[in-house]
């Protein structure tokens, strides 16, 4: 079964909306950021700390945690991005509805950080997806993430979200298409020993709008 659904986006009505309406739209958008935590290493702990009572980013309108990328507006990549993880990051980013924002949290996801030398670490998540705000530090303190969120909200407030602007942001600055960093899922090895049979699970196929590639 194949489901063809368009990527949800702010409609062309936004192009013609009068200025006060745009202000209201942007205001609504910046204070209801459903966040999706891509926690990969030690920085994720600081991110979690920022979501807890003491730092509490809910007061800035960042809502933890979206049930999945399809319900999220903001992705925070916190931790060491490895080449093996890269396809998953790209895939989940592609599944987020537009407009979408990315905060790169910590030295590792900014540039590879202390593992810049490593044979398996991606030299910054911005090689895979466009990043809006970089938060430096190893790890950054939770306050630094709050500052990053405020920066992002300032960016959103001054944004004009026309379809053209969205295209320029998401389609124009693509460093890689999903297909380039996506590998097929690992298949189970063919058993020669008798194995316990498991019930067959069928999953709906979802089509990636931008590449026409199939994500399964």
């Amino acid at each position, binding site marked *: 079964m194949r489901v063809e659904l368009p990527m949800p986006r702010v409609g062309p009505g936004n192009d013609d909306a009068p200025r006060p309406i745009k202000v209201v739209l942007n205001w609504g958008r910046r204070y209801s950021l459903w966040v999706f935590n891509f926690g990969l290493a030690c920085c994720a702990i600081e991110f979690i700390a920022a979501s807890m009572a003491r730092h509490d980013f809910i007061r800035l309108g960042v809502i933890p945690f979206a049930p999945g990328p399809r319900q999220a507006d903001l992705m925070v990549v916190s931790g060491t991005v490895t080449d093996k993880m890269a396809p998953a990051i790209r895939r989940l980013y592609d599944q987020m509805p537009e407009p979408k924002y990315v905060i790169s949290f910590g030295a590792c996801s900014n540039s590879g950080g202390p593992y810049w*030398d490593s044979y398996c670490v991606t030299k910054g998540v911005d090689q895979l997806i466009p990043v809006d705000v970089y938060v430096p530090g190893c790890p950054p303190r939770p306050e630094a993430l709050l500052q990053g969120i405020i920066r992002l909200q300032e960016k959103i407030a001054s944004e004009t979200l026309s379809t053209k602007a969205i295209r320029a942001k998401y389609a124009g600055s693509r460093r890689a298409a999903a297909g380039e960093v996506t590998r097929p899922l690992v298949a189970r090895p063919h058993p020669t020993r008798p194995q316990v049979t498991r019930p067959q699970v069928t999953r709906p196929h979802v089509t990636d709008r931008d590449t026409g590639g199939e994500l399964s």
Partner: protein
Amino acid sequence: MIETPCRDVPLQEWTAALAAARSEGFDFFDWLTAVDETDAPESPGFDLVCHLMNSSTGQSSHGALARVLVRTRVPNGQSAASATGLWSGAAWHERETHEMFGIDFEGFDDGTGLGLRPLLLPNGFDGTPLRKSFVLAARASKAWPGAKEPGESSEGGEGSPAHTEKPGRRKIAPPGVPDSTWGPR
């Protein structure tokens, strides 16, 4: 801390030594890995190391399990015998050692019949990254952007190693850093 006893065995007796340790009661396979000793002055190669524990010990009040290391030297290019016949769980460790160090294991069998294949590396990865001879791609394409001390800059500014280093000091590049034959960076 008590040092774990280590038994050095010749390569031909690798599985025999493991089987002997197992029959002595060291029945729990903990891990297996290799150490790159290809720059050792005598009999260069890879140290294949296996850590075993005795699961019937440790009932006393201080509770430490008896443990032993078994070690052998595998010359570059030669293969070792597989321990999967003794412990099925050795399969993952041998696959990892194979992809990281390029050591072959004869008689490897994890029940799939697919043989030694990469376990952790991304598909299409070339090379054996934990060998000292493996050149780091990032270093080969770009100068290291970091600094060893706070305030140092990689641009060679004031206080950078280029100014403070004694001229007579021999520079030893760490493993993985491409030498001058890779061209200027």
